[in-house]
């Protein structure tokens, strides 16, 4: 059955070529990729989809520089001042690049500890917050007791942040490790840092974690987690039915929901243009310092 359309003059003038093919494809749901590619080449040979500013890649390494997307909590002056303060702090101490799933060791100054410092090693299960309030949570199992510590990235009492193993995981948040078998969260406190050769991309650890039997802290089966292997074993029929009922497949097409959660590319470019120069300089100077050979005076032994 042909579909009657009210055609405007622009359509008739511009679309002569694809009108001929329209009738055979009017009933298909999604046009085939191959045909569209051919048409694009015929019509506009030089047309490419817009290329974005390459500085936008910085959003993965320094996500806390982007402000909170909620417009009720935005203040451009405060954000500028925060960014300046963040750069000042970064010039004092090296806050390395790490992601959720990397193993990090943090040394903080503690007035009540022996030696006045306190060191904790753990896997980063979450990074949240923006600006100077950016936080990350480290999890480890010590003496069969799971321990989580939440640190602020820009806390002045932090003396050293050392990345022992730099890697990414299949999920953005690893809260399911709380319900996983303890072997997936135990890391020795005297672990040595694993150094990656320069220029390698951040490795993705495709490990799929096994969960302990129910009860769990959250309904992991409803959360589309890619890093968990054995959820289905622990589910009853009732859980499967309720999961189907609670699914919201239309949410991934909700364009305005995505928009309200992100900072648009133009605003991001402004921020990175402000900040990338100093960050780049700091990176380069730190690399130079690490490669420099320090001269240590030999200790003379008294005869």
């Amino acid at each position, binding site marked *: 059955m042909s579909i009657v*359309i009210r055609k405007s003059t622009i359509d008739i003038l511009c679309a002569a070529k694809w009108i001929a093919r329209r009738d055979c494809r009017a009933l298909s749901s999604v046009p085939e990729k191959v045909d569209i590619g051919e048409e694009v080449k015929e019509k506009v040979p030089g047309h490419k989809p817009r290329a974005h500013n390459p500085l936008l890649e910085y959003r993965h390494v320094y996500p806390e520089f982007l402000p909170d997307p909620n417009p009720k*909590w935005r203040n451009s002056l405060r954000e500028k001042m925060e960014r300046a303060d963040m750069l000042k702090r970064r010039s004092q101490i090296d806050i390395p690049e790490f992601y959720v799933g990397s193993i990090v060791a943090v040394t903080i100054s503690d007035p009540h500890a022996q030696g006045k410092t306190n060191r904790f090693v753990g896997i980063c299960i979450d990074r949240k917050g923006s600006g100077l309030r950016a936080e990350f949570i480290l999890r480890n199992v010590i003496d069969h007791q799971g321990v989580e510590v939440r640190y602020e990235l820009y806390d002045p009492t932090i003396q050293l942040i050392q990345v022992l193993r730099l890697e990414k995981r299949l999920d953005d948040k690893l809260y399911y490790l709380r319900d996983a078998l303890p072997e997936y969260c135990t890391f020795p406190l005297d672990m040595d840092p694993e150094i990656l050769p320069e220029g390698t991309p951040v490795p993705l650890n495709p490990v799929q974690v096994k969960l302990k039997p129910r009860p769990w802290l959250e309904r992991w089966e409803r959360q589309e987690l890619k890093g968990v292997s054995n959820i289905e074993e622990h589910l009853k029929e009732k859980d499967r039915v309720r999961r189907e009922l609670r699914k919201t497949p239309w949410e991934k097409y909700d364009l305005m929901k995505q928009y309200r959660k992100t900072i648009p590319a133009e605003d991001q470019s402004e921020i990175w243009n402000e900040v990338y120069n100093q960050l780049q300089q700091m990176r380069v100077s730190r690399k130079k310092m690490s490669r420099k050979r320090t001269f240590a005076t030999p200790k003379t032994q008294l005869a």
Partner: protein
Amino acid sequence: MNQADISKIVSKLRIKVPPEHRRLRGPQGPEGRLNKLRKTVTGLIKYERIELNYRRGDEARQYAERLISEAISHGDCHKPTMEIADYWLLEKQLVHKLFKVLVPRYENYNTAFTKMYKAPQTYYGRNIDKAVLELRGNPYPSLTNKQSNNRLLLQNVLLDAAKYDYRQAKYAEMADKMSKTEELQTKLDNNPESKPSESS
């Protein structure tokens, strides 16, 4: 405190976006809200000018702008964009119209792609705001009748005549000034010539 989502890059919309979405209440809930907006966006792309309630029009405007900006930034061959266009446009030839007609039209725009006007309320006593939502560059005659630059209207005729007279008066003044200064110049030239002749 939330961290901005970094998995996707979106282009900035050139319309005012309120901080929260309107719920558009109905028996089907959030899914029904998106279904209603789908129909509205399909109608907008199909007819290029539609008349509807203000609340639904404002929401649909945001989604239409997002759809067009995604189509412009990613283009034809990007699978996720095609799936989004397939979901939002219920008539599949409009997917072609979006990528072949609207994208080239709006590629180089610096303004928003849609325009919304407030329309008169149809029912007396029921406060339902109406609006007209249209795509810019549509082939219909414009809804506003902006005649302020029409040279044939009486006020512009009178103003042009007044400006012309003023300018003429100014030219006459300048001409007088110039002629006076010329006379003075010639007198000064003549006088020193006559003086030495007298003295000698």
